């Protein structure tokens, strides 16, 4: 497709070579530097050759193994725990019970306000289990096998309690999970903006949707949770080797629980095989490994989760129910107001929640222009696995809700879904766009993305094929999903949930230095899990210092001792491209400034006459228009090795530059729930063609297009990989993956055989394109990306709606498979309504 509509660039599918050289492959042909080129990831060679360093690969001297004994019940009182047989098992070094953990630690800090902050959350159940798979004891043994065998000897006597599985039932408080809280309601707040009543009074149409439901699913990273913990008796410090993806928060929770100082904890991460957010939640197991290590005299203790444990009891994504939705529209189908009641199910313990109670409001209006809305938001605990941030955390549920609203309204009013969106999208000329709740959308062009996606998929041709197919009785639907990926949180939004929350703003740190031999070494505190931080950081530094990315060594992965972290450091919320790279860029700029000052002294030439570049001796500073130069090794030598006689004005030069980037946020207005909650807004627009197969009713994706806009693209290859990943994740969630529970709280999909995660076999060939609307909120114009807003879930729901609407089956569940579609159609055949949708036309 020609770039014929302004400054945005775009690429049709199949133009990106699959084998590219590591360097010098211009992409998009508009950038002079390294940023913007699809260079091969520095990480790839070691990862694809099996040379990554993952926690379960570590074998430390004296290391032993911890196995957890888990509850088979969702809700039960613990009457007794007998570990005597396990203690006697050969190879067992110690056991831990909940009662012991409660004596040795204090409960984790609760983020929520009264009364949810009364919850007593330990690393192990003490007197009651609240979800199936909750740890009730631990066994530590010389080998993993011995620990597993001994764990089966632990005898736990339970008294079964009434399980709370349904979030609406949870609100009845007929069975309360946490007696100290006295209710199952974690939080409630009303988010109201504009003139909702007036908008409904003046509406030409009002659409009612009784109930919609967004299901639980997981992130299913290739690598499950793992940690090695050591409470060293020699120096009294605690050492963690972990794949936790937000270790600064982890150690802020662990240190008080263990009664130690944060500085007493050293925490390191290495290669991580995916997280998508949920590895933020493995800090309880980190605590247990430290406790066990202390109990056995300081040996390192490894815990490596099995897949079944991961599926059953690590962390799931939030489940959300949308009730009593009303949508006001004008005579042209423009939405003027929405009101609805949302119940979020966070599982047994809020933990990182209830931040999700406000995070969804970063995308309050989605991509739409409506100004009047009232959302009554409640979060409850239930006897299910605790939730954790899961790719698109808290926002994807809301975005799916909005996309269903728009889509259902379009069908009900007889407006084509693409036209409906064009009438309601925020317009390109309105950016930066102020949302009703005070967020500032930095940039975007949704109509342009829609146009591109329609061309990619062949919209008109599919419409013709669809019409023909319908004559043959086939159910083919074409669906659109438009979504947002908000990146770089303002932690001040936590105060909307709890006015006493001690967080605000956002920051990241990085260090760039010339080491003793003049090599460029970058240290970042981020915790990459496949995002390519080493690569993109080297691209940014290469541009600043006029070198090749191969000449930049990046130390990625978290290490408290590197001193490049702040309280916000971690990899989450689509932010590295903005926060992490801003810190890297700032540190590189500081280093460049020092290099130039030092070179000016060495070359006896004013800074203005110097330039950085590559010479015969590698990276150098030279006098413009001459062959007079000094290379980086020589400059580093002056500072680090041969520094006698350095003049006073250069005493502050270290060539070792740390920079902390801080986001320009203010604390939101807590009463109004108003303020800028996020810095950048990437957007995704997907179109799917889906057929409900005759006979089996299985939905099958026939064609799929995705268009992405993450502002200035730093590495197109990495962005495209992220788009493929999040599209796979979303298609899997929409059609295959469901953390379902039965009425007793049994988790019914605790193996991959039952959960059926998506694989390459199930993936359609993606037709991919992108536009770039540079963000005015980041130094480079880049926006954070990678979560993808769960666009495929919205898109496939819309496509199924299109396929089933003529039979008046409304798609009000985010998970749909052959079984649910069959049941919906059967219900309609029996004359029963499916979906609870009705419309008031007011003339």
């Amino acid at each position, binding site marked *: 497709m020609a770039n014929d509509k302004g400054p945005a660039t775009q690429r049709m599918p199949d133009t990106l070579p699959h084998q590219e050289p590591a360097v010098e492959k211009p992409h998009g042909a508009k950038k002079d530097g390294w940023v913007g080129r699809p260079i091969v990831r520095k990480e790839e060679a070691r990862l694809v050759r099996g040379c990554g360093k993952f926690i379960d690969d570590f074998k430390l001297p004296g290391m032993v193994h911890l196995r957890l004994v888990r509850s088979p019940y969702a809700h039960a009182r613990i009457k007794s725990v007998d570990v005597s047989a396990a203690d006697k098992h050969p190879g067992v070094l110690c056991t831990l019970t909940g009662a012991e953990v409660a004596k040795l630690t204090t409960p984790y800090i609760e983020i929520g306000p009264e009364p949810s902050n009364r919850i007593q959350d330990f690393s192990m159940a003490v007197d009651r289990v609240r979800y199936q798979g909750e740890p009730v004891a631990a066994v530590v043994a010389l080998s993993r096998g011995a620990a597993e065998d001994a764990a089966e000897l632990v005898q736990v006597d339970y008294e079964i309690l009434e399980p709370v599985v349904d979030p609406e039932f949870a609100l009845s408080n007929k069975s309360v999970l946490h007696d100290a809280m006295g209710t199952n309601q974690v939080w409630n707040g009303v988010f109201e903006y504009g003139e909702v009543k007036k908008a409904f009074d003046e509406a030409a149409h009002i659409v009612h949707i009784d109930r919609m439901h967004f299901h639980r699913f997981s992130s299913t990273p290739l690598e499950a949770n793992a940690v090695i913990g050591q409470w060293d008796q020699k120096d009294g410090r605690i050492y963690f080797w972990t794949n936790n993806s937000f270790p600064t928060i982890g150690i802020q929770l662990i240190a008080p629980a263990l009664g130690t100082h944060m500085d007493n904890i050293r925490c390191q991460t290495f290669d991580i095989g995916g997280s998508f957010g949920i590895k933020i939640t493995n800090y309880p197991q980190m605590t247990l490994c430290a406790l066990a290590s202390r109990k056995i005299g300081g040996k390192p203790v490894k815990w490596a989760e099995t897949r079944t444990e991961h599926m*059953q009891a690590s962390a799931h994504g939030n489940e959300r129910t949308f009730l009593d939705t009303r949508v006001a529209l004008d005579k042209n189908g423009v939405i003027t107001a929405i009101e609805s009641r949302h119940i979020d199910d966070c599982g047994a313990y809020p933990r990182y929640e209830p931040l999700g109670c406000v995070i969804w409001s970063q995308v309050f209006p989605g991509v739409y222009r409506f100004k009047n809305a009232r959302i009554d938001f409640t979060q409850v605990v239930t006897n299910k696995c605790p939730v954790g941030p899961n790719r698109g955390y808290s926002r994807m549920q809301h975005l799916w809700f909005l996309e269903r609203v728009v889509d259902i309204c379009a069908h009900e009013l007889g407006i084509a879904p693409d036209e409906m969106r064009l009438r309601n999208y925020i317009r390109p000329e309105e950016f930066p766009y102020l949302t009703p709740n005070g967020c500032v959308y930095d940039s975007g062009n949704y109509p342009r993305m829609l146009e591109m996606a329609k061309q990619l998929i062949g919209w008109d041709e599919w419409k013709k094929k669809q019409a023909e197919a319908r004559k043959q009785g086939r159910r083919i639907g074409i669906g659109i999903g438009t979504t947002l990926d908000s990146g770089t949180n303002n932690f001040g939004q936590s105060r909307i949930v709890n006015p006493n929350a001690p967080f605000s703003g956002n920051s990241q740190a990085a260090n760039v230095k010339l080491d003793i031999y003049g090599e460029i070494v970058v240290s970042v505190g981020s915790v990459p899990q496949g995002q390519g931080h080493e690569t993109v950081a080297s691209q940014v530094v290469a541009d600043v210092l006029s070198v090749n990315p191969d000449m930049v060594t990046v130390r990625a992965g978290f290490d408290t001792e590197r001193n490049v972290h702040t309280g916000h450091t971690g990899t989450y919320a689509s932010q590295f491209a903005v926060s992490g790279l801003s810190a890297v860029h700032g540190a590189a700029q500081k280093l460049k400034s020092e290099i130039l000052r030092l070179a000016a002294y060495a070359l006896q030439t004013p800074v203005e006459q110097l330039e950085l570049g590559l010479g015969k001796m590698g990276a150098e500073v030279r006098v413009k228009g001459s062959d007079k130069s000094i290379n980086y090794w020589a400059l580093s030598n002056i500072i680090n090795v041969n520094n006698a006689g350095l003049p006073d004005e250069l005493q502050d030069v270290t060539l070792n530059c740390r920079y902390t980037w801080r986001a320009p946020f203010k604390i939101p207005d807590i009463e109004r729930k108003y303020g800028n909650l996020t810095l950048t807004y990437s957007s995704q627009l997907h179109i799917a063609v889906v057929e409900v197969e005759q006979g089996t009713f299985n939905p099958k994706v026939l064609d799929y297009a995705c268009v992405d806009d993450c502002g200035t693209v730093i590495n197109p290859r990495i962005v495209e990989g992220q788009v493929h990943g999040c599209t796979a994740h979303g298609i899997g969630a929409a059609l295959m993956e469901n953390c379902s529970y039965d009425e007793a709280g*049994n988790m019914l999909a*605790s193996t991959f055989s039952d959960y059926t995660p998506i694989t390459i076999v199930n993936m359609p060939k993606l037709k991919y394109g992108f536009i770039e609307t540079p963000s005015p909120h980041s130094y480079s114009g880049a926006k954070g990306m990678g979560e993808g807003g769960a666009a495929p879930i919205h898109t496939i729901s819309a496509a199924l709606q299109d396929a089933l609407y003529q039979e008046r089956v409304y798609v009000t569940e985010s998970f749909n498979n052959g079984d649910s579609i069959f049941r919906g159609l059967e219900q309609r055949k029996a004359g029963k309504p499916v979906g609870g949708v009705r419309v008031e036309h007011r003339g």
Partner: protein
Amino acid sequence: MAFSFGGDFAVQPSPQTVYAFLTDPQKFAPLLPDFQSVSMQDPTHFTVKLNVGISHIRGVADVKMELSQAEPPSRAQYKGQGSIAAGTVSMTAGFDLAPDANGGTRVTWRGEAQIFGRIISMAGGLLEPLAKKNIQKLIDALQTALNTGVHAQAGEA
């Protein structure tokens, strides 16, 4: 995962004889499918060790049983709870005894079982048919034992 079961049958012995049989764990427990051993804690509490095999999940289950209702000679009820590595089962099984016209006994049996744990995820589709099959084996063995006095283990009758 919960399911109910029940039925009735007639046997030749009198209600007193049937009641005595049913409430004697040493006689009743060996009829359980894949029985290994029984150990008595007191006259109404005992633990039965059973071989368990569901698809590839194999092991030994200790099932703690309690004679929870004993109303001679008309009713006996057992409650039990057992566990294997992948899950637990809680069950109740009651027997109502009434004299029939032939001097024998009509036994009406009703029960409920509830299964918890990841075994449901791993073998959920197999559990209910397997449980029904084993319950039928138990009832068949019980009938044989009562009619013939031969205490054959379920499945061998």
